[in-house]
């Protein structure tokens, strides 16, 4: 048995096989074929598609990075057409009667090796270009653009780190736990794990190779421990722990249907954060009283082109219907920073967290924004939808949003399409918004405080940078004071205010939020019952007196 230590970022126990996930790497099997012509036709078609992809990359690079840097994709095109490359592929298929995938893989490997052995460091690097081209072809031949397959049975995934675009494509039912050698409690894998209520451990010094791949493993998300090939005693102990957790869950389930009210009668709305219509099941299962944050960026990130109005309308309609009249707050597109979409063609930025993201993109490219707003307004006939705008820093932005909203409404009216009246709210996630919250409160129906970004901007700490964890304090007094100030200003203007960042689910601070009289807490569905338990056990007046 080996034990590895890391930072527990999502609680729970997982027992199962470990699967090492490596980017781009793929297993290629050698298969005998009889019809080699068919294989060569597949090769020709794959090359055509690869050339098309490279054209797009070249154009994009030309625009974003200039000709010098774009030339690399031209070189990739040349490799694709290269005589040695093609002759080698064709020779392998015809002489060995094997599948084209194997021939491409072998050729890529062989040529990459030649480059890797050259004594020039520049030329050594070119091995990567040859591999890149053969991998592109293999991906195309596989039929899936870049779909991620893990396993038929649920596994513990071990990886360096998963990008949001990768986690999106995972079949979540096959994931027991995430174990990463990088990452932090704020990385996407951790947030996703908490959302899925599965254990996750980050920053484990785990060898991502055959020494763990396929082996039995146990992840203790609370303790941040990974046991590889555990002994019998550990297995028993962990199984017991898993059962206890299960018991605790069962106890929490008894809180379903109960009110989220303190013992001295203060009521809080407990809502769920979701990223897709499917997540509503978890929200309902955990007795969410509404949806406090529907992140719509995933709708965009899953696609290879802009989702149409109709596609979005269907999603929002379905979500609203599933919530059966309970409030569902849908946040407009919050892309940029660490969440990217290739087809947006965004330029590289020095500082994406302070760059072109969220509402800024929507205001700069109103056609994208209008499509989403039309879909939302059309869906408003099917439930209690509220719209929320992210990354607000000024009154001017709200005025511009309102203009666009009026235009969209007028168009729908002219087209005879019915729509309901939607509550309009904003995210408070920049210090700027905090300090003008008094003025902002007069413009909108509600606030929702995004504590992740607010903390990052207040403390000037990049939440993806794991080296800074020791400086990061989720309960920093500056953040708590800002939240208190926002709540006060909201209430003075007569609007309600919620919290939808990770802090909303932090049991250590729930009482503090109750004392501030926060109206709504939105969190991963799995946290709801635990927070309800705390709320019901709290007497706010007594808590305030003790302080």
């Amino acid at each position: 048995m080996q034990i590895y230590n890391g930072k527990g970022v999502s609680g729970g126990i997982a027992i199962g096989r470990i699967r090492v996930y490596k980017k781009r790497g793929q297993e290629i099997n050698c298969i005998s074929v009889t019809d080699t012509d068919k294989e060569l036709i597949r090769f020709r078609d794959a090359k055509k598609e690869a050339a098309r992809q490279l054209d797009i990359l070249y154009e994009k690079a030309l625009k974003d990075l200039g000709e010098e840097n774009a030339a690399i994709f031209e070189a990739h095109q040349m490799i694709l057409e290269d005589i040695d490359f093609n002759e080698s592929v064709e020779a392998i298929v015809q002489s060995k009667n094997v599948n084209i995938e194997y021939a491409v893989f072998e050729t890529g490997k062989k040529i990459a090796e030649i480059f890797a052995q050259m004594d020039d460091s520049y030329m050594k690097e070119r091995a990567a270009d040859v591999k890149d081209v053969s991998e592109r072809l293999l991906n195309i031949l596989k039929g899936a653009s870049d779909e991620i397959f893990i396993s038929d049975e649920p596994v513990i995934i071990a990886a360096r780190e998963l990008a949001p675009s990768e986690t999106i494509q995972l079949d979540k039912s096959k994931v027991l736990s995430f174990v990463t050698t990088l990452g932090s409690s704020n990385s996407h894998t951790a947030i996703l794990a908490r959302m899925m209520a599965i254990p996750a451990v980050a920053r484990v010094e785990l060898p991502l190779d055959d020494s763990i791949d396929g082996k039995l493993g146990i992840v203790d998300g609370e303790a941040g421990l990974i046991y590889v090939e555990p002994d019998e005693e550990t297995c028993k102990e962990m199984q017991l722990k898993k059962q206890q957790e299960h018991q605790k869950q069962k106890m929490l389930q008894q809180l379903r249907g109960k009110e989220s009210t303190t013992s001295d009668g203060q009521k809080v709305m407990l809502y769920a954060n979701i990223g897709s219509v499917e997540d509503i099941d978890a929200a309902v299962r955990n007795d969410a009283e509404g949806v406090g944050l529907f992140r719509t960026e995933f709708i965009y990130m899953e696609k290879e082109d802009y989702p149409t109005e109709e596609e979005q309308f269907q999603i929002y309609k379905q979500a609203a219907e599933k919530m059966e009249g309970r409030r569902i707050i849908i946040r407009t597109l919050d892309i940029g920073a660490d969440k990217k979409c290739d087809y947006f063609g965004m330029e590289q930025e020095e500082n994406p967290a302070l760059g072109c993201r969220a509402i800024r993109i929507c205001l700069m490219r109103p056609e994208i924004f209008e499509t989403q707003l039309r879909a939302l307004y059309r869906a408003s006939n099917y439930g209690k939808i509220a719209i929320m705008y992210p990354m607000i820093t000024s009154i001017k932005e709200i005025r511009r949003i309102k203009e666009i909203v009026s235009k969209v409404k007028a168009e729908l009216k002219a087209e005879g399409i019915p729509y309901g009246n939607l509550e309009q709210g904003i995210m408070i996630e920049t210090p700027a918004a905090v300090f003008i919250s008094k003025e902002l409160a007069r413009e909108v129906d509600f606030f929702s405080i995004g504590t992740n970004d607010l903390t990052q901007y207040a403390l000037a700490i990049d939440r993806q940078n794991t080296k800074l964890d020791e400086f990061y304090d989720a309960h920093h007094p500056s953040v708590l004071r800002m939240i208190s100030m926002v709540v006060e200003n909201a209430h003075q203007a007569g609007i309600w205010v919620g919290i939808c960042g990770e802090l909303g689910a932090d049991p250590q601070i729930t009482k503090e939020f109750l004392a501030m009289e926060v109206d709504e807490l939105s969190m991963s569905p799995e946290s709801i019952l635990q927070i309800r338990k705390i709320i019901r056990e709290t007497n706010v007046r007594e808590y305030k007196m003790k302080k």
Partner: protein
Amino acid sequence: MKEFKYTISDAMGIHARPAGILAKAARAFACDVKIARGEKTVDCKGIIGIMGLGVKKGDEVTVIFDGEDEDAAYDKIISLMKENL
């Protein structure tokens, strides 16, 4: 058959980009175009072969043309070499 010798003055040698330019240009002609450094000779119509020569600054290469349109190919390739390398 025609040939010329050329000494590379570009600091990076024949790296990916000029190799691509040469291969693309050579392919436009019907004649055989070969490029050699020392003992090793490769087809000048393939980027991988050219890059595989590992030509560095100061190396002398020989480009050999053989075929109907060799004159035109000669002119084109020599001017590209002067321009890029």
